C-alpha cells in the first residue's frame, strides 16, 4: 500500500507538468461506470426509500403519506408471519445446513492419499454446477404426492404410512422446502470449512492425538476455534442470503399452503404486483434493507470469538 502511494510519474520529472490532465482522464474513464451505477444502483436504492413515504402509483401522481405505509405493514399479519418463517429458515440454515458440510470437510481431511480427496471434493461440490431452477424443479418432482420418488421409496420399504403431499401440507411444507439441496455440502460453507481445516498444520493434529484428544475433542477445542473468524463471515453471508430467500419457495410452494412457506420477499412481491400497493412494497424493501444493514454492522463489529451473538439476534 505504502509503495503504491508514490506516484508512478515521480521518476520522470517531465511528466509532472500535467497534474491536471491525469485527473480529467481518470474522471472521463470512470464516467461510464459511475453513470451506470448511479442510474441503476444508487437511484433505485434511494428511490425505494423515498417512495416508501408515498402512496406510490407509478405513472400517476403519488401523494405523500408519511409513515402510513410502515404502519400498514406493522399491521400486516402476513408480513409478521413471513418473518417467523424466515427465522426458522435462518436457524435451519446455520444448524442443519452447516453440520453435514462440516462433517464432510472433516472426513475429507482425514482421508490419506493425494488422489482420492481431490476426486471426492469434485464430486461433493458437483451439485453446485446445476442451475438452481433445475434443482428446485427436481425436488418438486421428488416430493410429488402421486408419482413422487420419495413416496414411492417410502412405500417400497414399508413406510407407506409416512407418505404425504410433502409440499402441500402446512405441517411439512416448510421443512420439505428447506430440505431441497440436501445434504447441502455443495456450497460455500463446505469450501470455507475445508480450506480452514486444510490450513491447520498437521503437527497440531498429531500433537492433539498424542495427548489423547479424541476426534470430537479436537473438533471442539481446535477446529471450531480456528474457524471462528470464518464463521463470522459465513453467518454474515447467510443472513444476507436468507433475507433474500424466496425463489425456491416461489417455485415449489408459492408461499403456501396456508402461508406456511411465506417469506418477506414473496410478501413484498405480492403486495407490489398483485396488490399494486407500491408504496407499501417500497416500505417492505426498505425494512429488509435496514435489517440487512443493522445485522451486517452488528456481525462485523462483534469480535471474531463472539459468533454466538449473531445467532441470538433471532
Amino acid at each position, binding site marked *: 500500500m505504502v509503495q503504491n502511494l508514490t506516484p508512478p510519474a515521480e521518476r520522470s520529472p517531465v511528466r509532472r507538468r500535467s497534474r491536471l490532465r491525469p485527473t480529467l482522464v481518470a474522471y472521463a474513464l470512470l464516467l461510464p461506470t459511475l453513470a451506470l451505477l448511479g442510474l441503476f444502483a444508487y437511484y433505485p436504492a434511494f428511490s425505494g426509500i423515498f417512495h416508501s413515504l408515498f402512496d406510490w402509483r407509478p405513472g400517476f401522481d403519488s401523494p405523500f403519506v408519511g409513515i402510513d405505509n410502515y404502519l400498514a405493514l406493522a399491521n400486516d399479519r402476513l408480513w409478521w408471519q413471513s418473518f417467523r418463517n424466515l427465522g426458522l429458515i435462518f436457524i435451519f440454515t446455520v444448524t442443519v445446513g452447516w453440520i453435514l458440510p462440516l462433517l464432510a470437510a472433516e472426513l475429507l481431511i482425514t482421508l490419506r492419499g493425494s488422489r482420492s480427496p481431490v476426486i471426492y471434493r469434485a464430486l461433493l461440490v458437483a451439485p453446485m454446477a446445476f*442451475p438452481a431452477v433445475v434443482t428446485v424443479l427436481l425436488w418438486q418432482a421428488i416430493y410429488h404426492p402421486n408419482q413422487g420418488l420419495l413416496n414411492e421409496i417410502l412405500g417400497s420399504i414399508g413406510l407407506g404410512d409416512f407418505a404425504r403431499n410433502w409440499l402441500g401440507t402446512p405441517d411439512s411444507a416448510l421443512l420439505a422446502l428447506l430440505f431441497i439441496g440436501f445434504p447441502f455440502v455443495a456450497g460455500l460453507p463446505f469450501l470455507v470449512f475445508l480450506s480452514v481445516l486444510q490450513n491447520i498444520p498437521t503437527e497440531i493434529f498429531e500433537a492433539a492425538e498424542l495427548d489423547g484428544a479424541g476426534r470430537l475433542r479436537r473438533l471442539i477445542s481446535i477446529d471450531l476455534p480456528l474457524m471462528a473468524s470464518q464463521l463470522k463471515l459465513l453467518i454474515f453471508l447467510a443472513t444476507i442470503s436468507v433475507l433474500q430467500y424466496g425463489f425456491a419457495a416461489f417455485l415449489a410452494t408459492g408461499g403456501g399452503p396456508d402461508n406456511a412457506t411465506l417469506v418477506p420477499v414473496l410478501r413484498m412481491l405480492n403486495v407490489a404486483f398483485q396488490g399494486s400497493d407500491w408504496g407499501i412494497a417500497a416500505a417492505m424493501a426498505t425494512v429488509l434493507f435496514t435489517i440487512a444493514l443493522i445485522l451486517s454492522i452488528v456481525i462485523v463489529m462483534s469480535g471474531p470469538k463472539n459468533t454466538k451473538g449473531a445467532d441470538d439476534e433471532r
Partner: protein
Amino acid sequence: MSVDVRRRRRSRQYGVHIALTTIVFVGLFPYLFMVFTSLKSNEQYYASAIAPPWPLHPENYVVAWEQVRPYLVTSVAIAAATILATVVLATVSAYVFARYRFVGRQVLFALIALLMMIPGISSLIPLFVLMRDLRLLNSYVVLVIPHVVAGVVLGTLLIRTYIEQLPGELFEAAQMDGASGLRIFVQIMVPLVLPVIATVSIITVISVWNDFFWPFLTVTDDSMRIVSTGLTFFQGRNATNWGPLFAGYVIASLPLLLLFTFLSKYFLAGVQGGMPGGK
C-alpha cells in the same frame, strides 16, 4: 504405540470412504434421477419412478431440445453481452483506481464498494419501476443491466486488488519507455488480469443462469425467456410429460456443467469470490 495408532487409522479409512461415498451419492442422487427419468416413457415412469430406464427413450431429448433451445440461446446471448460490458467497464475503472492519482479517488471507490452491501432484492421494486418508466420492460437490455451492475461492482474490486498486488515496476518500466496509458492497459494489464476476468465471467454466467425473479417480472414475452424462467414455463406445458420434461432439465444444465468440468478452478474461485449476491 505409534503402530497401534497407525493401525487404528488404517482400519478407520474404510469408514471414511463409506461415509464420503454416501454423502456424494445422496448429493448427486436427484441429478441421477433426472438422467434416468429423462430416458423413460410416461408409462415407465408411472410404473416406477426408481426403476432404471429400459428400453431407453432418447427421443425425449429431441422433443425437449426443440422447446428448450430458444431459452438457451437467449441465456447465452445475455451472458455474453453481460460479460463483454462488465469486463470492459470493470477493467478500465479498476485500472484507473489502481494506477491514477486524482481528487476523490478514495470517495468514488468507496461509493462503488458500498454497493456490495445493498442486498439486490431490496432494490428490485424501485428498479422495476425505473425500467418501466424507461420503457425497457420486455427487452434484452433489461435482462442485461442488473448483471452488468453487479459484475462491475465485484469486478472493479477484484481487479483493482489484483493490479495492486502486481509489482509496480512493470508499469513504471513501460512508462519510462514512453508507452501510453492505453498501451500499458492493453498490452500489460489486460493479459495479467485474465485470471480475474475469467473468474468474474464465470460468476456472471452462474448469476445469469440462476437469476429468477428479475427475468420473471420484467420479461413476459416467451420468445425472450431465459433458461430459469423458460424452464418453469416449459414445466407448466409438460407437467405430465415426465420424460421430455427431465430431458429439458438435463439440456438446460449442460452449459454450467461444462464450465464446472473444464474450468473448475475458476468456477470454484467464482463461487468463493462472488460471495454476496443472489442465489
